[in-house]
């Protein structure tokens, strides 16, 4: 595996595995992310502060008072030379999603029209997609989740919305996402989950993690309301969403 080292000043560098999006490249990124995490825990990489995985690269942040680029780069090279197994065991996560209420899915009709499908076929294609969480970023808990069924690929909306409600489930390009906060957004809104992708009351405020395999489960409005009440009260059992 050949990588490029890109400088990010004297507090970070980026290990770039490729300039394209592919499961193989991202698999190596996640494997190095995990390998550095293990080495750090074992005390083998003093000065490394944290790593930031993306689709095709890993940023390594370090403390220039505790380590130098010249020390660290050969150590990262050695970790890569030891081999980066792709296809690491990942969590399998299922998220409930309500597609039914027009308030939750204002773009479902337009997506159906533009993809020459019925609304039900759009929902079925979203449910059948094999999603994987590639990157979290831009906002805490905002996940870029690729693997959307190819027949649903659409560019972003030409007119972004000023306000997208929290927990909206949206699609654009080859991805789906879930808005962790109310925010502006240009993706197509096709449903809503009663879950919060960022909840500061939880010990792990961000639910999704890079590497997660993900699918959606269709729920009706009554189930949505029941789960929403539990999430709001802090009594929802998040462990039920995860299979090892």
């Amino acid at each position, binding site marked *: 595996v050949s990588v490029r080292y890109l*400088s990010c000043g*004297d507090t970070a560098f980026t290990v770039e595995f490729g300039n394209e999006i592919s499961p193989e490249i991202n698999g190596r990124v996640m494997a190095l992310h995990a390998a550095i995490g293990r080495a750090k825990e074992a005390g083998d990489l003093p000065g490394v502060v944290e790593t930031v995985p993306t689709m095709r690269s890993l940023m390594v942040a370090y403390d220039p008072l505790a380590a130098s680029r010249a020390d660290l780069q050969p150590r990262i090279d050695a970790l890569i030379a030891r081999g980066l197994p792709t296809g690491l065991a990942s969590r399998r996560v299922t998220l409930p999603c309500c597609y039914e209420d027009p308030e939750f899915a204002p773009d479902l009709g337009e997506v159906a029209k533009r993809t020459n499908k019925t609304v039900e076929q759009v929902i079925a294609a979203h449910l059948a997609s094999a999603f994987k969480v590639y990157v979290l970023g831009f906002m805490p808990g905002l996940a870029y989740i690729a693997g959307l069924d190819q027949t649903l690929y659409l560019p972003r909306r030409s007119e972004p919305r000023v306000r997208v409600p929290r927990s909206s489930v949206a699609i654009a390009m080859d991805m789906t996402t879930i808005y962790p906060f109310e925010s502006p957004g240009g993706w197509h809104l096709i449903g809503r989950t009663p879950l919060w992708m960022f909840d500061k009351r939880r010990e792990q405020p961000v639910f999704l993690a890079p590497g997660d395999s993900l699918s959606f489960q269709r729920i009706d409005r009554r189930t949505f309301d029941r789960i929403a009440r539990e999430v709001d009260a802090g009594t929802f059992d998040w462990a039920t969403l995860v299979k090892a």
Partner: protein
Amino acid sequence: MSAALKVVRPGLFDTLQDLGRVGFMALGMPTAGAMDRIGLRLANALLGNPPGMAGLEIGVMGPELLVDADSVRVALVGPLSPALVEVPDAPPRPLDSNRTHLLKRGQTLRVGMIDGSSTAYLAVAGGFALPPFMGSLSTYARAGVGGLDGRKLGQGDALPLARGQAPPGDERKLAAPFDYGSGPIRIVWGPQEDYFSAGGRRTFVESDYRVSKEADRMGIRFEGPAIAHATSVEKGGADIISDGIGPGAIQVPGAGLPIVLLADRQTVGGYPKIATVASVDLPRLGRLLPGQTVRFQPVTVEEAEKLRRDQESRIARAIADFRVARPPGGIDLARLYEENLIDGIVYE
């Protein structure tokens, strides 16, 4: 009895900050933290606090704080002209900055405007009694986390103090304001300098760039000559597959004007980054005001690391060089009596 500083009148953008929420960028959580780590660190050192304890970062104009505790020792660091109202309705008495002050119950501290910097710091001996979020008290207002309810101070807020009264000891001051340097801002090329033409890179390091009004904790948008991308913007020359954003990353979107990303920056982004500010000069960026002009000067990674280590030595020397602060007008008799310092005291 609870001890607090009560916000009689808020400043413009006062937030609690420590040295940042590290370790969660992989979850999309920005580090936040002090825009000028040196200012916060000196304020903590003056008080004998740990270097990374959270203090109040004052943005442009500071608050008016009523002491609701037996006593509290505060350190003010930065170009401030604070004033103290000792009893209600009395005329305010000016205080010096870059030193500690012992404040008593019922007194009101007016922090006021900062002169020539966008940030300054107020720390308290013993720190604030607030729960950390993900290991840090740094306020990140976009997600509403850290500090006091995840937001800037507002009228009527009470900042709970960990100590009900000030620890015994002298007031201390800096021997001189810390010298942040005045030459060009040092940068390291990359991570995507190859997305810019040779002429574009030359423009970047040979032109003056002015801080625009769009400058906040997230970053600074500069105005000046446009930097040419290597490939036309129409053909995707200003788009990359998103990658990580380090502190001080200088991204250049299609319009060609540089944006330096600071404490509250997002963790990943899709614009090419021509260069990254060397960590030695990040505190200077954190103090810039709209209208100020800078130049950027390239250094190597090794030079940047060395500049940072040298700066660290200068900070350590500044701390070793703290002086006992002489009270205004010479000997503070009231305090001498109060603290029974009868065996002679020598200032400086």
